[in-house]
């Protein structure tokens, strides 16, 4: 349906009145040389001009000048992997259940390759050690420092083969002399590869963010004339404390602008964009009270690389007829079945799911009794329409099946990683044994009976902010069957209607149309019968 005059002409006039000039992209980072970057040239420090045998040796050298650095790091969840919550629950990587590799406990040497420390091999790790803090993983400016996947946080001190891939010896002195403020490579090593490989976990964080195009991430785009912001421009770190947490997120920031004096939560959109970010568009600004910026401005997730959507552990363990492990890949080369891990499903460039969210994530732990009759929400966003601090947020929901204790109705911690004969599932492929050993290691009760239950886990979406031209069109949500079809509790124009009003409307309109047609017809025929043209 098109309306010629109003449809084409008037909107142009009104549009030109409503829309003013757009923000021009000014590069966030000036091009700077090494002198304007730092007061110190680390290549000239004698402490660093020597041969380092291990990571902790480097850290000792760092601490000679940066005396408080390790103590600062000790306070971060990058170090503790532990987040005490207000309700008394102890969360953080070290404690939570997840539906990827399930639990850190018992699998340390593998998981802790993303720990900002060295040598976290088991539960005896000394969290008070200053020299075990890994400075280089975050401050490496060379791109050559990499932690070995199963190395408990250590890099390759000599050339090492892991899973048919060569990890060359890291030149620790060279890295130590060329340190920098963390850039995307440093953060991305762990955060882009969460869940074990590129793009697996988050959906909005993967290695495509190292050098994103403007359409992928308008803030971090690194091309000519782009803003070229890095992670820590928003996650503005002081004293090694990085703001912006998935355990205590800010679903709405009523504080607004934080710069140039960051006194609130600098990682929220409104810290830079304020509370009325849409210029000359009142209706869009009206949305902010109930809709997170991310909902419209991150139209799809995993835009360039597929992210994992489904992980079914119950299918793990199948081998081919010769007893060898199987890896099946899809047409794009992503694994869809791996004997060690089970069945996977992937998705690329997909719409996230939307939920009311007030910033509290309801997280279950290994102590929670679950209802195994239905899909178990490992975490789920708290919030509802009539709570003014809740907004509609986008989430990646990762679903799957994982083992639990069918008697105690609690999740279990299987030992996955370990050598053959250790009972580790990835070597011995015996669920019963690996769960028993894993639970024993964690000092948790286990009935000896396990099953698999379907789970889902919510990951709030924050990154891959698209240019404003690519933000969601109104009709993506303001329509029947749109993106917010199932988000209830609020009247959404274009989606909702009152049935009684619609019925009355139908009666009125159809009644008047039929009425005038009938009236007109009777007039026409009666006039013919009377045989006069028109009435007096």
């Amino acid at each position, binding site marked *: 349906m098109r309306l010629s005059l*109003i449809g084409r002409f008037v909107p142009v006039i*009104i549009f030109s009145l409503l829309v003013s000039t757009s923000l021009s992209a000014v590069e966030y980072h000036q091009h700077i040389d090494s002198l304007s970057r730092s007061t110190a040239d680390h290549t000239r420090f004698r402490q660093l001009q020597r041969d380092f045998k291990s990571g902790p040796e480097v850290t000792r050298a760092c601490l000679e000048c940066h005396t408080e650095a390790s103590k600062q790091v000790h306070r971060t969840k990058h170090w503790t992997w532990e987040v005490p919550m207000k309700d008394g629950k102890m969360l953080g990587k070290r404690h939570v259940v997840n539906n990827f590799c399930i639990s850190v406990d018992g699998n340390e040497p593998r998981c802790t390759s993303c720990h900002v420390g060295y040598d976290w091999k088991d539960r005896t790790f000394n969290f008070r050690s200053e020299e075990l803090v890994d400075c280089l993983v975050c401050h490496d400016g060379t791109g050559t420092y990499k932690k070995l996947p199963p190395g408990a946080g250590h890099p390759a001190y000599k050339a090492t083969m892991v899973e048919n891939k060569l990890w060359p010896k890291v030149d620790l002195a060279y890295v130590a002399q060329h340190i920098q403020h963390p850039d995307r490579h440093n953060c991305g090593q762990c955060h882009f590869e969460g869940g074990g490989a590129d793009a697996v976990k988050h959906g909005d964080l993967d290695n495509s963010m190292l050098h994103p195009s403007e359409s992928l991430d308008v803030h971090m785009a690194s091309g000519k004339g782009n803003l070229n912001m890095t992670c820590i421009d928003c996650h503005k770190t002081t004293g090694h404390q990085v703001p912006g947490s998935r355990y205590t997120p800010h679903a709405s920031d009523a504080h607004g602008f934080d710069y140039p004096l960051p006194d609130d939560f600098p990682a929220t959109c409104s810290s830079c964009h304020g509370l009325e970010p849409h210029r000359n568009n009142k209706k869009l600004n009206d949305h902010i009270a109930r809709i997170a910026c991310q909902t419209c401005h991150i139209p799809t997730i995993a835009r360039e690389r597929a992210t994992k959507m489904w992980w079914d552990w119950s299918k793990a363990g199948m081998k081919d007829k010769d007893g060898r492990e199987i890896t099946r890949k899809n047409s794009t080369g992503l694994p869809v079945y791996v004997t060690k891990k089970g069945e996977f499903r992937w998705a690329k460039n997909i719409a996230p799911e939307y939920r009311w969210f007030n910033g509290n994530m309801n997280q279950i732990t290994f102590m929670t009794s679950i209802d195994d009759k239905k899909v178990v929400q490992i975490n789920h966003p708290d919030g509802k329409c*009539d709570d003014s601090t809740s907004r509609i947020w986008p989430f990646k929901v990762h679903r799957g099946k994982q083992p639990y204790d069918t008697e105690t109705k609690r999740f279990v911690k299987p030992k996955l990683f370990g050598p053959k004969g250790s009972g580790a599932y990835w070597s011995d492929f015996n669920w019963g044994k690996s769960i028993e050993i894993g639970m024993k290691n964690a000092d948790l009760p286990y009935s000896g009976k396990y099953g698999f239950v379907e789970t889902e886990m919510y990951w709030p979406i924050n990154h891959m902010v698209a240019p404003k031209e690519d933000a969601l069109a109104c*009709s993506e949500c303001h*329509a*029947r069957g749109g993106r917010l079809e199932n988000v209830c509790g*609020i009247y959404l124009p274009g989606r909702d209607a009152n049935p009684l009003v619609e019925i009355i409307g139908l009666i009125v309109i159809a009644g008047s149309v039929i009425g005038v047609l009938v009236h007109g017809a009777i007039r026409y025929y009666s006039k013919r019968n009377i045989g006069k043209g*028109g009435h007096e």
Partner: protein
Amino acid sequence: MRRVYLYARFQRFWHWMQAIIILGLLFTGLEVHGLFIGINYEDACNLHNALAFGLLGFILLAFFWYITTGDFRQYLTEGNLLEKIMLQVRYYMIGIFKNEPHPFKKNEISRLNPLQRITYLLLTLIGLPMQITVGFIYYYFNELVALGMPPGWLGPIAWIHTLLAYLLVGFVVMHVYMTTTGHTLTSNIKAMVTGWEEVEE
């Protein structure tokens, strides 16, 4: 038959502007309500809001004109209004089919029949102001919630706005049809364009 000058230039201008604005509001409003996809949702929404301000402006202008020119007297009736309305209703229900003359003659002093008077009066003084008020409550919803209005009113406000819009569609249908009941099928519409109408002696 004689020609009378019924509608002053301002009245015609106001009538047709109001017609365009109301049709535009109905079209964009029903698109925003999700009944069809016309222009797109965003343009429909922006246009609807802009037209709403336009309608408000024109209504205020018309009130000013009617009051200062004294033309509001066209809407006043002497005698038993109900009886006169029933006469006009009877004409539309029965008389019109028998080729009876119109019960009320148009002239420069009185161009509206009693049914028109009451309908337009209700529309201008109650229907449209109510719709505009509800519409502005809808538009300034966030501000009103900040002033203490319950957020849960959004739904009922939208329902009322939709219901009034449907009633307005009904009015438009009948109003357009009624224009064909003049001396000839098009004489009423011609009058609203030129100002001049041929009326019964």
